Structures are given as C-alpha cells and as structure tokens.
C-alpha cells in the first residue's frame, strides 16, 4: 500500500472502529487496503467478493460516516479484487459468456444485434454534408471519448435525416472499441413501456438498476416523453444518476428540446446542458452523394440522370430517397425497360405527390379556399356561420384533413379553436356532398390540384 494511502486508511479505520464491533472490524476491514483516493472516490482492495458484498450491504453507512469524519466530505466507494478489476475477474465473465451463448463464434455479431443496433448504421456509411456536419462531428467526438466532451449530446431533426443512424453509429463505435462497456440503445417509447411494466409488476428497483448501470445510454425519439409525467420523473433520475456517474447520454428528438410539448422544465434544461446538434434536410449535392453511396452498397447501376432526377425531386427525407432508389432499381432490373423520366415519374407517383404535399400548410389551404369561394380569410377562423361561410370553411377543414398530417384537434385549433368533433363532422359532410353533387366534387378536386402544384 502506498504510504500516503496507508495513512489515510489509518484515519478512516480510526473513525470506523467506534461505529462497528471489534469483531466485525477485524473480520471485514482488517484485510482491506486503500489503493486509490481521488476527490470523488476511494477504491478499496478486498481479498475476494464476499468482502465487497458484505461491506456494501452492511457497513456502507458506517463507512460513509467514517469518510466524512476523516476527509470532511463524502466519496464514492469502489471495490477492487486482487487482480485489479472490480468484482468478478474478466476471465470468469468470459467463461460465463461462453456457457450461455450457443455459438461462441458468432458472439460478436449476435451481441451487436442484442444491443438493438443495426450493423449497417456506422460512421463509415454516414454521408456527411453541410446539413449534418456539426451533428456528425459531435457524434464522432462523443464516440471517441464518451462522457468527456459533450454530455448529453442532443441530436434533433426531421424524419429520416439520420438521427437513428448517428446514435447507432456511436453505440457501435464505442462497443467495438471496448466490449466491456455497457451500451444501451432504445427508444423513449420502450423506456416508457418498460417503466409501466415495472410499475405493474412492482419491480421498479430492477428497472432502475438496469438503466442506471449503463455506461452509454442512447435514447431515440425522446419527444414521446412529452406529457408522460411519471416517466419523465423516472427518466430525470436516471439521467442525473448517469450524468453524475460520468456516463455518456445521447438523445435524439424530432424537434428542439424546448419545443417538446408538456416536457418538464428541469428536463428541458438538462437536455440543453451539453451540446445540441441539428440535422437539416440535405442539399442536392448531399442527396446525390447519398444516392451514389447507397447505389454502390446495394450494387445497382443507374444512369447519372436518374440519380439527378431523384435527388432533385425528393428533398425532405433520406429514408424516402433510399426507398425511391430501391424501387427504380428493382423496376429496372425486373422489367429491363429504359428508364425515362416519364417512367420514373409514373413509378414514383405516390412518393412525388407526397413530397409535393409535404409543404402544404393549413394556412395555405385556408387562403386558397377563401380565395376560391371569395370569402375573407378571417371568416375561416371566425365564429360566424351563415351557409355562405360555413361551407367553404368545412371544405377547408376537409382539405386540411386530407392534405396535411395535422390531427383533428390541430385542425380545429387552426380554424378558430373549434372542437375536433366539428372538424370530423365537416369532413363527413363534405365527403357526402362530394358523392352527391358532381359540381362540388369538381370544385374540390380543382382546389386540391391547385394546392398540390
């Protein structure tokens, strides 16, 4: 034992002795050595694990009291067994693994999928462009030195822009470097479900232990925590435990933390604590690069014009971009036909339409409908309801329902705080009148197509 540590241990022992019986002290502490002491923690070397188990279970309070008496402030206590690693020696861990997994040879691969990580989502397969440079650099920094630089790392961006890809890449990078690191990747929805399950079966302790042991916690789609108060509280404590234990936390979300509805302020402020990185939709060059890379890995050969066309027309979502590429490629290989622009446009009709539709807002619909029926835009949200105003309003609600992803409630709100039932009624009514009256159907399809343009 280092001389300095020996002296420190002497002081600790002196403070400990009065608190426990002589027999207990001799039995459990006489063989303990202090091997490391920092401002935050003390490491005790014990002859074997029964010492650790018994001291942890029975003498932790006494030991902490002694630490405060001798050093003035509490420290975390760690244990090391003779070989230098805490608890069990790694050799035993290895043999345990061998016994459990049926095919040890495929161990590495199996474990990666056990983590819930898709082996394809690595840093190598991530296409970097100006839209995601910062997020990529931050993710790489985190992966190279977890819990050193940016903790927590908060990645946000729209659907299909690579949030999950980056998170999984971090997980795999860290795990590949050190197999002993406990990586946990899950969506916040799974977290919530397991939490509910734990409440139901009243094994919260087990639940907590599971999460608070992680060395790297990756939580995807954190926005689902919004409005779930108890889950938020549980997550808050998990977050704090991990953060205080210097464990890396990475979160992804489809919007900035401050915009998550019904998320407690203390969580928002914690999410914004580390680094926040945004993923933006890729520009055309990046999209083209993604398509080329994807085509190469999938071993498809397509003419450059085709890729150009896809990249220029599908702007918002990389997942959709890849889907379109897949579709075009399989069509080409199955039918053997020449890929002209018309063929592709026909093939991707729904995607392109959806892509165009993406940008339609309720406000645009309201403006267009008001213009068409020659009513004031203010009438869309007003409380007045003569037939000349009510019907256009209902048509606008119907179109909002059809053309946007807004919920009935959101549509109701956009139309002057109306009830979702009102919106539902409007949709049904318009649908019925469309089947009954041809001219109404024509009018509405005209507005629809003019909006889509």
């Amino acid at each position, binding site marked *: 034992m280092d001389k300095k540590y020996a002296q420190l241990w002497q002081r600790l022992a002196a403070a400990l002795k009065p608190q*426990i*019986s002589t*027999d*207990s002290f001799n*039995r459990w502490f006489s063989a303990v050595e202090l091997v490391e002491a920092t401002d935050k923690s003390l490491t005790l070397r014990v002859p*074997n*694990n*029964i*010492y650790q*188990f*018994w001291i*942890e*279970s*029975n003498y932790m*309070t006494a030991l902490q009291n002694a630490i405060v008496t001798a050093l003035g402030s509490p420290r975390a206590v760690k244990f090391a067994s003779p070989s230098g690693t805490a608890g*069990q020696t790694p050799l*035993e861990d290895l*043999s*345990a693994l061998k*016994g*459990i997994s049926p095919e040890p040879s495929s161990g590495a691969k199996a474990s990666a999928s056990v983590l819930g990580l898709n082996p394809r989502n690595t840093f190598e397969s991530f296409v970097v462009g100006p839209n995601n440079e910062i997020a990529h650099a931050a993710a790489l920094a985190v992966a190279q030195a977890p819990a050193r630089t940016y903790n927590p790392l908060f990645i946000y961006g729209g659907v299909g822009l690579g949030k999950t890809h980056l998170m999984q890449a971090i997980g795999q990078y860290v795990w590949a470097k050190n197999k002993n690191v406990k990586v946990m990747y899950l969506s916040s929805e799974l977290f919530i479900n397991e939490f509910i399950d734990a409440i139901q079966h009243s094994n919260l302790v*087990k639940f907590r*232990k599971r999460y608070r*042991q992680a060395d790297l916690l990756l939580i995807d789609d954190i926005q689902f925590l919004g409005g779930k108060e108890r889950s938020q509280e549980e997550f808050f404590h998990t977050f704090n435990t991990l953060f205080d234990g210097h464990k890396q936390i990475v979160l992804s979300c489809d919007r900035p933390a401050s915009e998550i509805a019904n998320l407690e302020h203390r969580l928002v402020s914690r999410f914004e604590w580390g680094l926040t990185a945004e993923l933006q939709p890729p520009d055309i060059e990046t999209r083209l690069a993604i398509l080329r890379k994807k085509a190469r890995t999938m071993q498809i050969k397509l003419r450059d014009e085709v890729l150009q066309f896809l990249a220029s027309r599908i702007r918002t979502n990389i997942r959709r971009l890849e889907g379109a590429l897949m579709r075009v490629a399989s069509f080409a290989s199955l039918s053997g036909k020449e890929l002209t622009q018309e063929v592709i446009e026909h093939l991707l009709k729904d995607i392109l339409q959806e892509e165009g539709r993406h940008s339609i807002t309720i406000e645009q619909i309201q403006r267009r409908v008001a213009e068409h029926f020659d009513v004031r835009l203010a009438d869309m949200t007003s409380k007045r309801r003569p037939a000349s105003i009510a019907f256009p309003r209902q048509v606008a609600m119907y179109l909002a329902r059809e053309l946007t992803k807004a919920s009935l409630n959101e549509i109701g709100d956009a139309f002057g705080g109306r009830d979702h039932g009102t919106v539902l009624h409007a949709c049904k009514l318009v649908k019925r009148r469309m089947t009954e009256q041809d001219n109404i159907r024509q009018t509405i399809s005209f507005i629809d197509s003019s909006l889509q343009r």
Partner: protein
Amino acid sequence: MKFSVTKEKLLEGLQQVQNVVSTRTTLPILSNVLLQANGNEIHLTTTDLDVGVRGSCEADVEKEGATTLPARRLFNIVRELPSSEIQIDVDGKNAASIRSGQSFFKILGLPEEEFPPLPKFEDAKVVTIRQKDLRHGLRKTSYAISTDETRYVLNGVLFSFKDNKLTLVATDGRRLAMVEIELEFPRSHEADIIVPTKAITELQRLLTDDGEVKVSMGSGQIAFDLNKTLLVSKLIEGNYPNYRQVIPTESKERVKLERETFLNALRRVSLLASDKSNSIKLNFSKNNIDITANTPEVGEAKESLPVQYKGRDFSIAFNPEFLMAPLRALAEDEVFLDLIDEMSPGVLKIQTPFLYVLMPMRISS
C-alpha cells in the same frame, strides 16, 4: 400422433412442466410444451433454454409421434374439460384436436424439430441424494437467495460437494443460510456449483419425501433425475464467495426458543414495524426477552417472551422479515439464537447441521 388419457394424469403431468414456460419469450417455440407419445406414456418437456423440465404421464397411445403445443393454452383447456376422458389427435401440420365429452378444441402447434433438445449428460459426475434430504435442505436455505442481479453469483444456491458432505448455502449479503447433508461420493466428485434460483424453485416443486434424486453434473450444467421427472439447468458461472468468512466463530449468549411461539410473537410485533426502518428490537434481560417495535406517529407494540437467559442485559435490532423467514422454513420445535453483542451478527441454529447468520440493524437511540 393419437392418444387418450385421463384428465387428472394429463393435468398432473402438465403442472410439473408448465412453470418453466415463461410468459414473455422471444422464441415462440419456448412457450410450447413438447409432447412425445411412445409405448404407453406421453413425455412432456418444456424449456426456457436455461432450465428445462421433462415429465411424463400414462396414456393409451394409438399412434406414436411427437409435436409441440402452446403450454399455457393447453393447460387451461385441459383444466376446464368436462369429462375425465380426453382424446388428442394431432395431424401432420401439428394441429391438435382435443375431444372430451361434448367439447371439441383445435389448437395449432409447431413442429417437434424446432424444439430445442435438452442437453445430454455424458461422462458427468453422478451423485445420489435422498429426495427428502435435498427437499428439506433447499427449504431451509432458498429464501436467503439474493435477488440483486448485479451480484449474479448470489442468484442461486451453492451446492458444495466436499468431504462426504453436501453443503447448501444461500446469501444476499445481509443474511446467510447453510445446511449440511451427509453424503457418500468418490473424492473425484468434489465440486462447488451454483444452481440458479429458477431451477431451485422448480426443483422444490418436484421433490417429494420419498425416493432418491440422481444429480448429474456436467460442464456448466446440472441434471436432477427424479425417476419420473427430469430437471436440467444451466449453472451460474463464477466463484461463490467464501461464505465461511461470514460465520462468527464465537458466541457469548445463547437462548433456547420455542420456534412457533417466537415466530408468532415476531409476527404480531412486526405489524408495527415501520416500513422505512423496518426493524424490531429484542431486549434481553434475566429470563425474559421483550420484543418491541415502534414507529413514530403510528404507535408501538411489545410482547414479552419468558426464556432461560442469564447473560447481561442488552438490545439488538433485526429486520423482522429476515428473522421470520428461517423460522417459517424450519420444522423443528426448538431453535437456538447465538449472539455476541448488539453490533455483531446473530446466529440461528437447530440440533441438525443448519445455520442462519443475520446481520443486526443499527439501533438509533
């Protein structure tokens, strides 16, 4: 495959194996029971890949064969069947038709080949134990198993075969239970193995007071052959901690207690132990123990127990649940409580080789 069987026999057979089937499983085949009809019996097997159980029941086998059927569902159906005669007919697509009295059920199974086979035990070390001894030994120790998954070596019972003795040990870091069973086996069979909790629970269900159990120890796994049923389990890898370190070598005071009287008194007093501190105090004075519990703002309880005691007056506090657990598991009329002082562990003993070490709680004065 086609056979008829009585409801009672099939139910009994299913009851022996169905607990192994876990409700939440990733592999659908693991929620099924393997049925094999040979000669005049049906073999029933279930497994969760860690623990597997194989039982059997008598039946009139018309056509031999094998299939797997959803265990829980089959059990629920059989339990509700109106008549005691059951006919089961399984077609080539593993769909089972179950007829009994006026009832007819058809349930869909999975092919037999998908069912993971139970491990084989070739050149394993075999030791024979009287079922009664093992049953009582496990009953006296298994309640002390740790449920803390971070200390996985403690999530089971240690079977230590040494010096013609089988020592069973369970501990969770606050208490330790140990039983020794005299046993004859060759020196080459000496071993320390840890049998996981789930296997212990199932084994306790299967053991009876008659006959013997053949224990086969392979590498990393163990089999308990109870003649009619077989339980196999993976072992917990790792070294069980040196439990002897926990057992106090000396004792200053010893009191003899009537087990049931003591247990009943503890149970009554513990009604007023607070959830938070959860401790009851034993106050020793001449020929008397006062058992007390008190929770601020709730109330207090006290019960006096006349005993033979001539030592010094002192108090010691224990977790009531931990003190009652061994008293419930034991069958003996008398128990001995050995104590040193208020800060040292108490030891509960009986006439036969059994020992329970329990750490005291701190008395806040």
